[in-house]
Each structure stands twice: as structure tokens, then as C-alpha cells.
């Protein structure tokens, strides 16, 4: 991370005593553990994260993995240097003499700020890029689904085909067709979320909030959840969304009283 700076830093103070080079040891430890940690994150992340079932879901999962990979060296730095200090520099009893003060080097501080700044800037730009990519994905063929929350159930409308699904029914979406949800609420604040598709928006009474346009890519059955505390049966406000083939969807929407 900032090896040169730290090297320079202790160079100023390093005493004439015969001691192992603590800094080199800690840095080697840090590099080794970071590399191991990053490899482990890449290997296990597919097992920890639920599989993405849409374009957004996949992007989100890779963002999570990327952030975690970046997080490994940062956290390892603190862990290694902290635990190294606690184990190597510890004294048994109340110390009778003081330690030699470390002189802060401006170069270290500036270097530290530069590294955290670059990391931070990278994350912001990355986030903005992903965000605008999602929110500006225009499509001519978007399926609109109006979602209305109320205590404690969801109502789904398909205005383009004139169908409504109310109550504890399973709703369906066609695979590989962009879909956008217009979310609102009849009573209190609710949160509309389908984790596997990577969509989430608050359902505000009196306002309509749009989710990003999402294209489901994997046929399957996914959970719709309420993610804002909305009263007594908040945790029971679950429904299912099925992503099905276009033919199945057309059949289903007709059965709901709409036209395909």
C-alpha cells in the first residue's frame, strides 16, 4: 500500500539497537495475507452470493466481489500492523520507562491520504458509472409493471396488457425482456425488493418511484419482499415472482384477463 512511505518513516527513527526489521516483517506478512485473502474471496464469493437472475443482479454480484477484493488489503493492513504491535511490542507489567516517540513524516501522511483518496475516488467513479448505466438503459420494448403496496400485500398491474394480480398470487415475468416497476403505496411506507433481480425501491404513499430497468435472464422463481418496516405483518409481506418463457408469460397474462 504505502511501503515506501513507511520505509522512509522508520528510517528517520530506526535506532541503533540490534533488532529485527519489524517493518519489513510486517509488510511481508501483510502482502502474503492480502494475496491469500483476495484469492479466497474470489474463490468463495460464488458460493456466498445468491446467483444473479438478471443483468442487474449479475452486475451487483460482481460489484460486491470487487469491493470485497479491494477491502482485503485495506483491512489486512490494520489487522497485521495492530496485532504485530500487540504481540511483538508488548510489555508484561506497567512500563517504567517511556517509548521513543515516532516522528510523523508529512510524506507518509500525504501518501496515506493519496492512497485512501484514490481508492475513494475509484469507488465513487465506479459507483456513478454503474448507476448511470443502470438508470439510462433505455429500451423500446420495456414491460411496465405497476406495483402498489398496502398493509400487508402487493398488487401488480400490467397496464400494457390490462391485467391485474392481487393478493397472494404468484406473478410472472417474461425472460429476456426488459421490465420496469412503478412502485407506490396506499397507506404507509413499504420497500419493494426482489433480491435476485437486483431491484429495490421504496413504496411511498402519494408518490410513484421507478426502479431501474432490469432484464431477467434466468427462468426460475424468486421472492418479492417488503424491506421497510410497515407494521404488524411486515415480515409476512412476501410474494413470488416467476420468470418464465415468453410463451408461458403470454398464456399467463391472458389467464389474468389481459392481452398478450
Amino acid at each position, binding site marked *: 500500500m504505502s511501503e515506501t512511505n513507511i520505509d522512509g518513516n*522508520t528510517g528517520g*527513527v530506526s535506532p541503533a539497537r540490534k533488532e529485527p526489521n519489524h517493518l519489513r516483517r510486517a509488510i511481508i506478512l501483510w502482502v502474503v495475507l492480502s494475496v491469500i485473502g483476495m484469492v479466497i474471496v474470489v474463490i468463495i464469493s460464488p458460493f*456466498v452470493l*445468491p446467483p444473479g437472475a438478471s443483468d*442487474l*443482479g449479475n452486475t*451487483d454480484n460482481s460489484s460486491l466481489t470487487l*469491493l470485497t477484493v479491494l*477491502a482485503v488489503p485495506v483491512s489486512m493492513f*490494520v*489487522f497485521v*500492523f495492530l*496485532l504485530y*504491535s*500487540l504481540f511483538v*511490542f*508488548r*510489555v508484561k*507489567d*506497567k*512500563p517504567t*520507562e*517511556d*517509548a*521513543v*516517540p*515516532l516522528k*510523523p513524516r*508529512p510524506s507518509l*501522511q500525504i501518501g*496515506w*491520504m493519496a492512497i*485512501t*483518496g484514490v481508492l*475513494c475516488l475509484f*469507488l*465513487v467513479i*465506479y*459507483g*456513478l458509472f454503474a*448507476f448511470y448505466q*443502470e438508470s439510462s438503459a433505455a429500451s423500446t420494448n420495456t414491460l411496465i409493471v405497476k406495483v402498489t403496496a398496502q398493509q400487508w400485500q402487493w398488487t401488480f398491474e400490467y397496464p400494457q396488457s390490462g391485467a391485474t394480480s392481487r393478493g397472494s398470487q404468484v406473478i410472472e415475468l417474461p425472460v429476456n425482456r426488459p421490465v420496469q416497476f412503478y412502485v407506490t403505496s396506499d*397507506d*404507509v411506507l413499504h420497500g419493494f*425488493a426482489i433480491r*435476485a433481480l437486483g431491484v*429495490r425501491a*421504496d413504496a*411511498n*404513499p*402519494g408518490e410513484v*418511484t421507478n426502479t431501474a430497468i432490469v432484464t431477467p435472464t434466468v427462468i426460475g422463481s424468486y421472492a418479492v419482499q417488503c424491506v*421497510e*418496516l*410497515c*407494521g*404488524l*405483518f*411486515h*415480515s409476512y409481506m412476501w410474494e413470488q415472482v416467476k420468470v418464465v418463457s415468453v410463451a408461458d408469460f403470454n398464456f399467463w397474462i391472458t389467464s389474468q384477463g389481459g392481452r398478450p
Partner: protein
Amino acid sequence: MTQVSVTTEVKRPGIIHRLFPSVVSGILLGIVGAVVFNVITNAITQDNNQDATVVFSYVGWILFFFVGIGAFNGVWKWGFGRAEATTAEELELAGKDQGLWRYFRYTTDHKVVGMQYLATTLFLFFLGSLGAFMIRLEQSQPGALFFNPSTYNTIVGMHGILMIVASIIMISGPFGNFVLPIMIGARDMAFPRLNALSYWLIFSIIPVFFSTIFLGGFQTGWTGYAPLSVQTLTPGMDAYSITIIVFAVSTTLAALNIITTVMVLRTRGMTWGRLPIFVWGVILSVLLGLTAFPTFLMSQVMVLMDRVFQTSFFIAAYGGNNWLYEHLFWFMGHPEVYVIALPSMAVAAEITSVFSRKTVYGRRMLLGSLITICILSVVVWGHHLYTSGSATALNAAYMLDTELISIPTGFFFLALIGTFWRGKVWVTVPVLFIAGMLVNFVIGGITGIYLADLPTDEILHGGMFVTAHFHFTLVGSMVFGFFAAFYYWFPKMVGKRLNPRLGTLHFWLFMIGFNGTFLSLFFAGLQGEPRWSANVAPPFATANLIASLFAILIAASVFVTIYNVIITLRSGERADANEWGGKTLEWSVPTPVPLENFEHLPVVTSTPYDYGTPEPHPSDAEGALEPAPLLPQEES
């Protein structure tokens, strides 16, 4: 418990004089006031407005409680008394020669107030952790196990408020009152009566808050989101709002008192540049609270108006909007996180320096980063509203600002690691807690980045991941910081040594239990478990069961602490006046600390971190009067 009463020759005050004014007369009169207001409100409101009755009964309780405890005596004397209070009267009010009974009166001595805050904080933490354990019990398996959803939501809300209130006061209250004035070389706080008032305000809302159990509870969780809070029929919600309003007043008074104390009562030579970092942390924190809490107060006034007078601040059908509540709430809610964090981070720097026997690495850099965090945190609240749809255009700005905070936070880590590095690290219980704090703070801070970044927040918002994240920052980091401060200053405050073996046991049980619990909840959050679920869905059952099992360790750590405190109070060893070899002023006064702290006010000649340098000769004291000559070896 610090001062044994030795009033043998003085005439003993009669029982009436002892009880009035005191907390006993306060409670008695408060109950009378509540009943009177209840009857009057019932008579005035035609349509049996239950909320109005409850709200005004609480107002009656609070007003008359303060009449009974004697809070208005000083105000009355200020206006209509014949003369100013004499020194003898002030000392009487400060609890001179009143033994333990002074802890139950409107006592102005800052050390008494500090002990009252400490006892209250521990009490609230205990009840809050009881709530936490009940939540883990309910979530250990899918389905409604022990509680119905209504009870569960109330427990979640009560756990949240108890913990938030306790952690807001946990450092600025006990240590900000007891230690801070001594640290800056003052004999008391700037406004001793206001100091007592700020404590007793918190005391007065504890029964109000717990009355919610008997009034049907509240469904909203600690955030109290409107319009759910307006819609809630049970008057238990009113208890929540009143609690918040009074608490906001209390923190405001405490804040202005602490800031004024530091501004005007620093002893000679205690320049701003020489102020201990702990003092900086506390004043930055309370300054933030001073500006943040009024909006929370107003939001609860609006909720009460909506509930009692049928106004429509948050009712969409009549032109209100729930976004208003969210903005008012989070304008307080995010700075509040730093109200909790800043003093804890400052404590960490203080303790690290003492136990490494080494000056704080880059002290100015650390101070600068604390100040930067304080400023940046005022304008980050929008990241709680990413998915709300209220200001989508501003999301990018909020994201930038939120992630900027990681830069000064990075400096905090640099400062602490730099202080430990090559120090003479004396690993005691406070140091263990600081180490735990740093480890947990890394995890809590980095998971904060996930929530600050728009694409990942999109799948994590409102989920268990958020719960795990803020528990890592608030509990894993800041409450660990509190316990470090607790073990560090307990010998000074109480005069006895907490058992270090039990302290170490406390640390390991807490650390392992905490990490086990909340790392499992991170996993559940990544899988997509929503927050606030009374009924755990089957896919998340295993992670929740593991979390609940680890919570047993946390529960065990709570009882270890209680046992430790009890045996220490009963038969602990006497602590030294300077138990750890610290150089801040509180270690220079005897234990127990005498009533006015200093026989002679000290004159300060350097920063309190000058380890490893020769002691400045007393004859150098003249130099102290010039502003801020910092340590020569510090930051060339």
C-alpha cells in the same frame, strides 16, 4: 461512593429536609402532576382523545417531577431571591457532606452527575441487551416462536431506542462530566445546575419510555417512521415521541454546557493546542448533537400533532409526505452516528497513547481528521434515502460525500497504528477493548462503503446487511470504545480496581460472541434477508440460528461484567491515584477526587502526551502562558 460522609459535629438534617427536595419528592409530585393533568385533559377534550390525555399526562409528570426535585428553586431565586446564592449554599447544592444520598438529589457536582450518567448508561445497556437477546431468541428459528409480531416490533423498537440513547450518552455523559472538567483543570462545569437538569431529564423519561409496554407498545422500530407512527393506534407511540423530545432537550443542554465549560474554564496554560484529544472528541460530538437534535425534536412534535390534533404533515391524502419525516430524521440520524463515534475514537487515541507510553502519532492530523468527519457528517444523510426516490438527482453528491468520510477515518487508523508501533505496549483490559474496536471498526467501516456505493446499496438497502453493518460500527467499535473508557477511568471514578481477569473474560466473550453473531447476519444480509423480520424466512434460518447461538456468549459477557462491578464495589482493591501512569490532569488529583477537584488550579506547560521526552522544568512555566507552543518534536 467516592466520599464518605463525616458529618459528626454538624447538625443532622431532618428526614423531611433530606427527602425534599430529592428524587423521592420528585417522583411523588410527578405522579400527582400526571394524575391532575390526566383528569383535566379528560375533562376538556370532548371526543375522548386518548392520545391527548396520554401526552398531557406525560407533560404533567415531567413538569411536576422537576418541581419536586427542586429544579425550579434556582430559577425562582434568580428572579425573586433577595441575594445571590452564597458559597455555602452552592456547596450544599453540590452535595457537600451528604454521603451517598447526594446521588439521589438535584446535585450539581459534576462528579456526581457523571456517576449518575454512568449508572444510567449501564442500566440502559443492560435492558437494551435484554431486548437484543429476546430478538435473537425469536429469530433463532423460522415462524413466530415466542412473541406475536406486535410484541416483537415493540421489543425491536425498545431495544433500538435504549441502545441509541445509551450510546449517545455513554461517553459524553459519564466521562464527559466526570473526567472532562478535571482534564481541563476546572472545578466544575460551567453551568452546574444545567448539568443536573440534563441528567434528571433523562431520568424523567425512563418511566415514560417504559410505560409504552402498558400502552400497547409501538410498531415502528427505533426510527419511528411516519406515517406508520401516525397510523399506530396504541398510545404507546406517544411515549416514544415524548421520550425523543425530552431526550433532545437534555442532549442540547448537556452539549451547550460542555462546550461552554471548555471555552471558558480551561486552566492557565491549557491552550486549545494542548487540549487532550478526548476533550476535542467530546466537544466535536456535542457540537454536532447541538445542531442535529432540534430537527429530530421538531419531527416528533409534528408526529404528535398529527396524532393528537389530526394535522397532516405526513399524511399523503392531505398533502403531507413521508419523505419529510425521513429527511428530518436522518438529518439528525446520520450526524448522531458520529455523535456516538467521535468521543469513542478520541478515547481510543487517549488510551493508546497512555498504554504505549508514546505520544499520539500525528496528533494534529488526528484532530484535523476528527474535525473533518464532524463537518462532512452533517451533509451525508441522503445516503439513507438512496432508494426512497426523494432526491435521486442528489444521490451522486451524497455518495461522494459519504465516501469522502473514509479519508479522515483512514487517518484515524494511521494515528492509532502509528502510536502502537514500536511503543511499550502494556496490554491491559482497556487496550484489549481498543484492539477489538479497531478490528471491528475496519469491518464496520468497509461494509459502510458497500452501503454508500449506489450499485451495491441497491441490493442491500433495508436488509440484514445494514443491521450487521451498523452493529459493527456502533457496538463493535463505539461500545467497545466505551468499555475501554470504562475500564480505564473506573479506578479514578470509583477508587477501586476492576478485576482484570474478569475484564479479559468479558472482552473475549464479547468479541467472539459479537463477531460470530454479526458476521452470520452479514451472510444473511448478502443472501437478501430483510430487516425487522419477526418471522425469519426458511432460506436464512441457518445463519440466524448461528447468530443466536453466538449471542449467548454476548449475554454471558454481560453477566461477567455485572459480577465484576459488584464484587469490585464490595471488595475490590483500592486503586492508585494514577493507576495507569497517564499524564492528563485527572490522574494528578487524589482518589477519591475532592469536591472542588483542585486545591490549587494547575498550570499546564505542555500537551499531555509528552512521553519519552525529559520533563519540562517547573521554571519553564512562564512559557506556558504563550499560546500553543506545541511539542518541539511534533510534526516539524
